Structure formats: structure tokens, C-alpha cells
């Protein structure tokens, strides 16, 4: 299997001017490499620069420093000739389920991307069917946003991006505005998509979602503070506190028990596993 990175961020910085003259560095000296088929979670508190990083990764934003570089499938995001190839390859889904839908009916919205790319009509129809099936929303061709829940709307947003047949899917806090049910729907969809070979990059402040990934990157104040498998991150409580993140309920319970002196495995995520552990102790 080819292991060349699909996304490479090299020493990227992103700063913007403040109204009163100063600069704010949303990101500084960030370097990251993501391989094909990975499921990466990028966690950080609000204001850590995670959204900026998401938009750098598909060229919607460009690094503000000369040495900074972002490569998507070996194409430079600064290279205007490749802009649309990059955006097609690395699709991005945003936070607000309402503000991504362009048309009244789902089938028209899903057609938007392929139409822009000049995909022939018959193929567009096939892609619509395929994308809807991939997110579990077959039969919703004629649905309108008014009748859909947040979770459904986000899945349609994912389908709309999938219609472009991207190899990479970036999700910029796409679960932040959803209720627990909607979040589950989206997370399951992402897992399935990753299993089918799509590289998934999930940006979130919700550590619960980190466990679905094979790799967790922690961002704080515009810099990468950690890049490791979720189990390692969960075991390092200080790391999380320093980066203004909290443990999900199960590892948190494990941690509290460890504090009392019990020998509980810190990197445990599923209730059943913790229950096993506790019974073992007794």
C-alpha cells in the first residue's frame, strides 16, 4: 500500500490583522502529515486555530508565511492551477448544518459540486444515488432542509461533498451544533466512510469523538502540542488539562479511581471495558 502522505502541512503560519493594527497568529509553525486512509482527530479548545488549520488543508486559506506550505496529494495549495483539483480531492464540511445547502431539494444540492466540475449528466445521477447511500440517506432525494433534523442535514452536507468523489474528507466542527443523536449519526457515517477508504480528518473540541480515530492531534493557541494515538492522549491527564480539554466520562471515571489508588487502566473508553476492569479488581 502506498504510504505517501495525502496531506502535508509544512511549517505553516496564519496570521491576520486586528482592526487596531496588531497581528494575531491563529497558527504558528504547524507541521503535520496525514497518510491515505487515516482517521485523524484534531482537538483543541475554541480559539486554538483548528478551523484555520482545516481551511489551510484544502486551500481555502493559504499560509501567510513564505516558508509555509500545504500539499494535498503533492499539489501545492498556493498553485492556482491546482486550486480546484485540491478542493475536489479534499472535501470540507462545516459546522452549521443550514449554511451549506445551496438548493431547496437534496438532489439539486448534491448535483452542485459535480455540475461545477463538468461531470456528465448521467454520472451526476449515479453519484447522487451513491452519495446518499454512503451517508444512509437514500430516499431523501426530494427532501428539503425544513423537514430534516440537524444530523440529517449534516449527513446531506457530507453527501454533497462526497458527490465530488474526494479522497479526503475534512470536517470542521461538524458535530458541534448537533444533539447527541445527530452526533452519533454523523460519527457512524464517518466510520463507514473511513472503512471504505476515505481519509477522514475530524476537527472537534469533543474528546468523546477522539476515540473513533487512530490518531489524535492536540492543538492549543495555534500550535500542535501532541500527536499520538487516542489511548496515549487519554492516559496523559495533565496534557489534556494544559490544553483546556476534558476527558469523556469513562476515562474520567477511570482517572478518578486511579487517584484513589486503584490500578485502573487509564486509556479505557467503553463502559463495558471499565466494568470488566473493576470486576477484575474485586
Amino acid at each position: 500500500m502506498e504510504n505517501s502522505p495525502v496531506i502535508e502541512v509544512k511549517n505553516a503560519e496564519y496570521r491576520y490583522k486586528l482592526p487596531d493594527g496588531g497581528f494575531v497568529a491563529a497558527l504558528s509553525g504547524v507541521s503535520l502529515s496525514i497518510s491515505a486512509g487515516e482517521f485523524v482527530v484534531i482537538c483543541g479548545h475554541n480559539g486554538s486555530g483548528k478551523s484555520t488549520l482545516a481551511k489551510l488543508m484544502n486551500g481555502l486559506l493559504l499560509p501567510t508565511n513564505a516558508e509555509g506550505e500545504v500539499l494535498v496529494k503533492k499539489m501545492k495549495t498556493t498553485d492556482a492551477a491546482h486550486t480546484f483539483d485540491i478542493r475536489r480531492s479534499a472535501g470540507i464540511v462545516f459546522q452549521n448544518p443550514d449554511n451549506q445547502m445551496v438548493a431547496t431539494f437534496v438532489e439539486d444540492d448534491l448535483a452542485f459540486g459535480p455540475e461545477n466540475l463538468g461531470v456528465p449528466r448521467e454520472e451526476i445521477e449515479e453519484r447522487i444515488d451513491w452519495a446518499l447511500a454512503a451517508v444512509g440517506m437514500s430516499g431523501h432525494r426530494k427532501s428539503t432542509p425544513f423537514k430534516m433534523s440537524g444530523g440529517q442535514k449534516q449527513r446531506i452536507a457530507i453527501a454533497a461533498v462526497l458527490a465530488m468523489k474526494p479522497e479526503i474528507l475534512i470536517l470542521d466542527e461538524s458535530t458541534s451544533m448537533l444533539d447527541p443523536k445527530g452526533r452519533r449519526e454523523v460519527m457512524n457515517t464517518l466510520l463507514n466512510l473511513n472503512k471504505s477508504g476515505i481519509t477522514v480528518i475530524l476537527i472537534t473540541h469533543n474528546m468523546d469523538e477522539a476515540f473513533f480515530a487512530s490518531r489524535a492531534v492536540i492543538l492549543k493557541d495555534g500550535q500542535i502540542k501532541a500527536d499520538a494515538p487516542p489511548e496515549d492522549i487519554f492516559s496523559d491527564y495533565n496534557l489534556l488539562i494544559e490544553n483546556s480539554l476534558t476527558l469523556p466520562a469513562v476515562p474520567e471515571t477511570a482517572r478518578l479511581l486511579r487517584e484513589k489508588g486503584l490500578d485502573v487502566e487509564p486509556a479505557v473508553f467503553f463502559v463495558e471495558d471499565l466494568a470488566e476492569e473493576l470486576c477484575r479488581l474485586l
Partner: protein
Amino acid sequence: MPIVIENLSYTYMKKTPYEKKALDGVTFTIEDGDTFGIIGATGSGKSTLIQHLNALIRVTEGKIVVNGMNLSEKKLDLKRLRSTVGMVFQYPEYQLFEETVEKDIAFGLKNIGVAEAEIADRVREAAELCGLDFEEVKSRSPFELSGGQMRRAAIAGVIAMRPEILVFDEPTAGLDPRGRAELLSLIRKLKDSCSKTIIMVSHNMDEIAAMCNRVAVLDEGRLAACDAPRKLFFDETMLSSLGLDVPTAVKLANLLKKRGVELRPAMTPPAFAEAFWEYYIEARR
């Protein structure tokens, strides 16, 4: 005085093909000093219910009495009602509109007819209670503030009216863990100062478990249960059937129970840790 809700029903778009019964014979009472939670899946009627409390939706079937005011009365003193029952909606920062933060917080006070001389002080008081650096933000445009500050300014705009009853619809929506913790502690602070009775609508079971002394569970417009969290949250079957999450501590405890390990009831991770530790010590003896 308690809020008494009797047999409250509500149907949207009556006599049209889109008719929907949002509430069906809901009856319960919210006592003074409660931190009252309202939970239920999306579409269970939570929004419809709370909008009745300050007469945004008028009572059509049933009865509600708030602080002695009967909400079915035609000539209801809306200004008095809405300064008694303060309501903070989801993403309240979207309601900010004035030129300065100070003016926006004062909006409610002007509407209910508070004397000019009093307004400035109450605005300052509300802002500081909400954790805003009043001197720093008062003359700035609300749109210049950070997201967290905007939400606080919006909440200040509601509590400036000194409502005895404060209703929150998904107060922590869209916030990161730190933001959530800060907001919940703000709610506790508000309870200790001006608003003795708090009503919270939420999807987050852990939040409800941590904050509320009583909870009403709605299911498709009907009241499925109304009791203290510790009496309701241990019924895993009931909660799942209503499409609700079960607090982790409860799931853990139930799993251990199946293996013959019976712990003292606990709803939050710290409480569970304590309960397990106690059991562990006992078992070791």
C-alpha cells in the same frame, strides 16, 4: 410561588394538513427554589412548553399559573410576566443588536419601564454578575466581542430585569468543555443571587444530573416522568426507550450490578468513584 401547569395541551396548525399535537395533557409543578430540568428527544415538545411560560405561546388548552398570574387571562400583564420569567434561548448571542453593550443590556429594562436613573446601575450589576468586565466592554459594539462574551452579554440583558424565574433553553449549546463548565457555574451563581428558580432544557444528561434537583421527561408531547434525577436516571430501559442518553455512571453501575456488585447510587463520575471506593474497601475487609 410555584409554577403550576395543569393539563396543558397545544396543537400547531390546527385544521391544516400539517396539524401537529406538540403537547398533550402535561401536568406538573415547579416549586420555588427548584433547579428544574426538562429533557426529551428533539420534537418532544420542550420548546413549546417553555414558550408557554412567558406567554410567547398563549394557553389554548389547559391552565398555567405563574406567580399567581393565570396565563389564560386575556388581559395578561405581559411586561410583568416577562420580567418575572426571564428566558434565555439557544445561542442567545444572536439577539444582540444595539450600538453598545451597555445599551443592549438596557433594552429589556427600557421595555418594562424601569426609571432612567435606575437603569445604569442595574446594567452594570447584570454585566458584572455575568462575568463581564463592564468598564472594558460597555461602550463597545456587541458584535466586537468574542463568542463567549457575546453570550454573557445576552444573558446579562435578561437578568438585568431581575427575573425570579430564569429559563434556559440548551444553555451550553455549541460550547467547548471549558465554556460549558463556565456557563454552568454562571447559572449556579445566578441562582444564588437574583433568580431563585431555574428551569433548564437540555440534551445533556450529565449536565442535568449535576445541576437539577427535579426533572420532567417529555415524550412526544406527553409527560413521561417527573421526579428527582436520582429516582429517574437509574432506569436505563426507560431512558433508552425515550431516545435519551443514560449517564455513564449509571451504565457502569448497572453493568456491575449484573455481576452481583451493588453500589450506592451515583449519577456522576466523581460520585461513582466514591461509591466504588467505598465498596472496594468494604470488600477487602
